[in-house]
Structures are given as structure tokens and as C-alpha cells.
């Protein structure tokens, strides 16, 4: 995607043979996502303008009523801010740590294979089970985190991690970071591995030191993969459900909820599908705006 913003062809009218090949290549994918994702999503979006019964079936037209009711909820602002805090608080550290880790793992060193195997563990385990485990670990009385901190003489009295959003939310973000690091690192690592040796050799020959190589060769060539990984991470984490649902379930009073967990509660516990659909639309708009902004920011340098 070296020339991502340049999508126009010279010939404006006839579809070239090469283009035909491209369209055929796209077809299966397009059909798949349209049938499985777009069709239901469009239905959901449309339904956000309707009042629905207790089981998600459309009843009558309601205009913007669902959105009005959503914005009237006291807790909505808090949930929205939580979501931003959650997403940025997780994406930024994850990317930084993963980048460093992937650069490190890109080298041959003793224990590399073992390190990679360990790295894969949080990714290999289901998020729900990891979350359950962490909920147990963070318990103030019988949890291992306090025990460990105690043994390392970092704390004297038990910290009640889950008792208040001030400690429970950061704790859950920490869990999310641990869970996100593996796949981010592996993805970046694959990107690093694609950088041809010749470039490094040439730089060596020219006498460049390591820092220069990092900033002049490695990082720029990693830009594409980096952009993809950050964007996908952002979107993925924004919608990350199991960690919060398993550990605090939004307690107390939705104060540790993010949009997706709040949506689930509204949809399946309140059975208020109107608000749930409105929330889906809002989520989509937010993520779309982010993606476009981020792409523009990252690529406006090139032109």
C-alpha cells in the first residue's frame, strides 16, 4: 500500500483486462462479507430508526427517538469517555511495547524460540478464560497479584483492586494490554522479517549506526504494517467485550462499562433494542471517523 491515496487510473471509461482480473479476485470476499456482515448490519442500522419489541423485531417508525433516548441517559457520557480511555490506554502501550519486543525478537539470541512460544500464550488462551483467571488473580483476599506484590515488598496491605473503578479499570486495561501484545508483536515481527537484508547490508557498508538504521530504514518500511496494526488494534479493542464483562460487568452502576458492554446490557438485559441499535450506529461512526482521520494523518506526509 505504498501509494494508498492514489486510486485513480488513467483510462476513465473502459475496464481494462487487468481490472477484470482484480474484480474477479475480489468477488468471493465481497460476496462473503456482504452476505454475512453487511446485510445484517444494514438491517440493524435501519432498525435504529424504529421502535422494537422485546425481541428485536421492528414495530413502528420512531425517527430519531432512539438516539434521543440514548443521549438522555446520564451514564452515556461516562461510558463514552471510558471507551476512549480504554481504547487509547490500551492501544498506545500495546503498540510501544510490541514494537520494542518485535525489534528485540527480530534478532537471533539464545532462548528466542522459547520466548516466542511464551509470547503466544495469552493469545492462545481464550480471552474469557484469561479474564476469569485475572479476576481471580486480582481479588483482594485470595488473589495472587496481591500475594506477589506482597512478596516483592511492594505493598504491605492488600489492595482491593476490584472495589473501585479507580483501580479496577486500570487493572482491566493492564489485562487487555497483556492480551493484545502477542498478536501485535507477531504481526510487527512478520513485517520486520519482510524487510530485505540487502537494505541493511547497504546501510552497514555506508557506515550507518544502529539508531540511524532503525529510523531511516526499519521504521519507514514498517509504516504500512504499523498503520494496519494500529488501526485494527484500535477497532478491535474499542469493541472488546469479554474482559470487562467477566471482571466487573460494568459495576458499579455502569461506571466501568465501555460502549460495547453497555450495548450488550441494553440489548439482552433491558431488551431495549432501540437504544442498542442506536449505539451500534454511534460506534460505527466513531470508528469510521477515527480510521479516516488516522489514515489522513499518517499519510499526508507523503505527497
Amino acid at each position, binding site marked *: 500500500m505504498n501509494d494508498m491515496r492514489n486510486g485513480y487510473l488513467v483510462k476513465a471509461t473502459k475496464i481494462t483486462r487487468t481490472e477484470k482480473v482484480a474484480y474477479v479476485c475480489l468477488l468471493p470476499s465481497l460476496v462473503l*462479507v456482504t452476505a454475512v456482515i453487511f446485510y445484517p448490519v444494514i438491517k440493524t442500522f435501519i432498525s435504529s430508526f424504529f421502535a422494537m419489541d422485546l425481541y428485536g423485531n421492528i414495530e413502528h417508525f420512531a425517527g430519531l427517538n432512539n438516539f434521543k433516548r440514548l443521549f438522555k441517559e446520564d451514564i452515556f457520557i461516562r461510558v463514552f469517555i471510558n471507551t476512549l480511555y480504554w481504547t487509547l490506554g490500551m492501544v498506545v502501550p500495546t503498540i510501544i511495547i510490541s514494537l520494542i519486543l518485535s525489534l528485540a525478537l527480530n534478532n537471533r539470541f539464545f532462548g528466542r524460540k522459547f520466548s516466542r512460544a*511464551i509470547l503466544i500464550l495469552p493469545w492462545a488462551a481464550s480471552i474469557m478464560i484469561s479474564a476469569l483467571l485475572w479476576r481471580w*488473580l486480582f481479588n483482594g483476599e485470595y488473589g495472587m497479584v496481591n500475594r506477589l506484590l506482597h512478596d516483592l515488598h511492594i505493598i504491605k496491605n492488600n489492595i482491593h483492586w476490584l472495589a473501585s473503578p479507580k483501580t479496577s479499570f486500570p487493572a482491566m486495561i493492564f489485562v487487555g494490554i497483556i492480551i493484545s501484545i502477542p498478536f501485535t508483536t507477531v504481526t510487527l515481527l512478520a513485517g520486520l522479517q519482510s524487510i530485505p537484508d540487502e537494505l541493511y547490508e547497504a546501510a552497514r557498508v555506508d557506515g550507518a549506526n544502529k539508531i540511524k538504521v532503525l529510523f531511516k530504514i526499519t521504521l519507514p518500511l514498517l509504516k504500512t504494517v504499523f498503520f494496519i496494526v494500529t488501526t485494527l488494534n484500535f477497532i478491535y479493542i474499542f469493541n472488546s467485550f469479554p474482559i470487562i464483562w467477566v471482571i466487573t460487568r460494568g459495576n458499579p452502576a455502569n461506571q466501568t462499562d465501555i460502549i460495547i458492554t453497555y450495548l450488550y446490557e441494553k440489548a439482552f438485559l433491558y431488551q431495549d433494542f432501540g437504544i442498542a441499535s442506536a449505539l451500534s450506529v454511534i460506534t460505527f461512526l466513531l470508528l469510521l471517523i477515527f480510521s479516516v482521520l488516522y489514515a489522513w494523518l499518517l499519510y499526508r506526509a507523503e505527497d
Partner: protein
Amino acid sequence: MHGFYTEQRTKMKLGLERKINFILIYAVVIPILLIIIFPFLVMVLTSLKPSDEIYVSPPYWLPKKLLYKNYVDIWRYVRLAHYFTNSGIYAIGTTVLTIFVALPASYAVARINFRGRMAFLFLILVTQMFSPIVVIISLYKMMAFYHSLNTYRSIIITYAAFNQAFSIWLLTGYFSSIPKDIEEAAMIDGCSRFSAVLRILIPLAKPGIVATVIFVFIWAWNEFLIVFTFISTDKLWPLTLGIYGFIGKYKILWNYLMAVSFLTTLPVVVLFLLIEKQLVSGLTAGAIK
């Protein structure tokens, strides 16, 4: 080929810089790995504990009694072998279908400058912006309409759709970072486009393909919501549902749960170890020439 060193450096410079490098690497990698492995250590230790050692305050590190029997018992409680098989079917099926569908699309986006290229990319990205929670009811209705409830295919197709965005973006990224010239040279030499892709591009892009395969496999292996909703018969249960046999309304059998969870991660780790060498490329050397 890995990283910053080549054989052209002198052995002395190599020695010192290498040492500093190793220290830096270990200083970074070890703490992070320790934090990552911490819950898994706890998982394994708990899986070996008897029930009366789990809720103790302050908690013990090591089990007072090692209960290997836990690992035997779990196979009795639930149909574990069966769940493993189903998980395998869903994960492998999804991975194959996803790659099969995403690879051509990624190739087109990366290599062909067609009209609507950016639109397609963003369209695909948009599909990632919807959590399955948002569409689960409509999806279920659709599967019911196509008489596909309680089938393997409903799961595999749905999973493959949700993984298109990630796969296409990732594969496109990796393809793009490989210079076009290599294939074009081959095509000028008389190779067909298809042949060039198969024999040149794909081997060079192996790290990217491997990363994608790992991602999709793990995603499918661990997915819960969709399979929970679509499947109502335990014949088709994967491990993620089977594990719930240990999470009751009033009581969680932690030791068994941890034992099963640990076993659940093993195939993934094994898969990873088998193909991780591909994450190491080293095939570009000399290719441009």
C-alpha cells in the same frame, strides 16, 4: 539474515556490540515475558491443586498436594476429545476458507491499480467495526432461514467473513512491502500472472501469510458468542462451550477449568511452534538479482 548482523562485520566489533545488544534484548524481553507467563504459571499450578487449596487467603504458590488426577478426571466429566475435534474443524475450516478468499483479494489490492481500490479497502475495514454482538440476532435469523443452524458450515462461513478485514489488510500490507519488480521480471520472462504469484510472491510473503493464519486460527479456536448462539446440540460443541461444563451457576470448578484451559492452549502453541520458522524469512537474499 536476521536483524542487524551480517558476516561482513569483523569478529571483534561483532563481539562487543553483540554483547550489548544481547543485554538490551534480555532486559526488554525477560520482564515482559515474566508478566505474560505469570497467569499461566498460576493456571498450571491451580490445575494441579485439590479443591480445598484454591480459596485460601493468603493464597499459596505451590500446591500442597499435586493432583495429576485432575487431568485424568476432566476427560470423564465432559466429552473433551469430542470438543477438541470440533474446535479443530471450526478453526482449520475457517482458516482455509479465509485464506482462500482473502489471498486473491489482497493480491488485487496490492498489485493492481483498479478503480474502487480504496473504496474496497475501506469497505472491508468497515466490516471490522461491528462486533458480532450487534449482528447476532440478524445473523441467527439468516442461518435459520437457510436451514443452517447446528451445522459446521454456518460457523465456518460466519467466522471467515469476520476475519476478512484483518486478513485482507494484513496480507495487502505484506504484499505491498515486497517490490513489484520481482514478479514483473518473471512475467516479462513469459510467466503467467497466476504462476508468478504462486511461485514468487507467495513464498516471499510467507511471514505475512503465517501471521494471518495464526491470527485466524486462534480467533476461530477461541470464539464463543457466535458458536454459542448458532449451536444447540452438544455434538457440535467446541472447547469454548465445553469449558462451560465447569462453570456452574453457583460454583466454578477452578482446578478442572484451569486444567482444560491449559490443554486448550496446547494445540495452538504446538501449531505456532511448527510454523513459526516461517516467520523467519531469509528467502529474499539473492531474489532481486
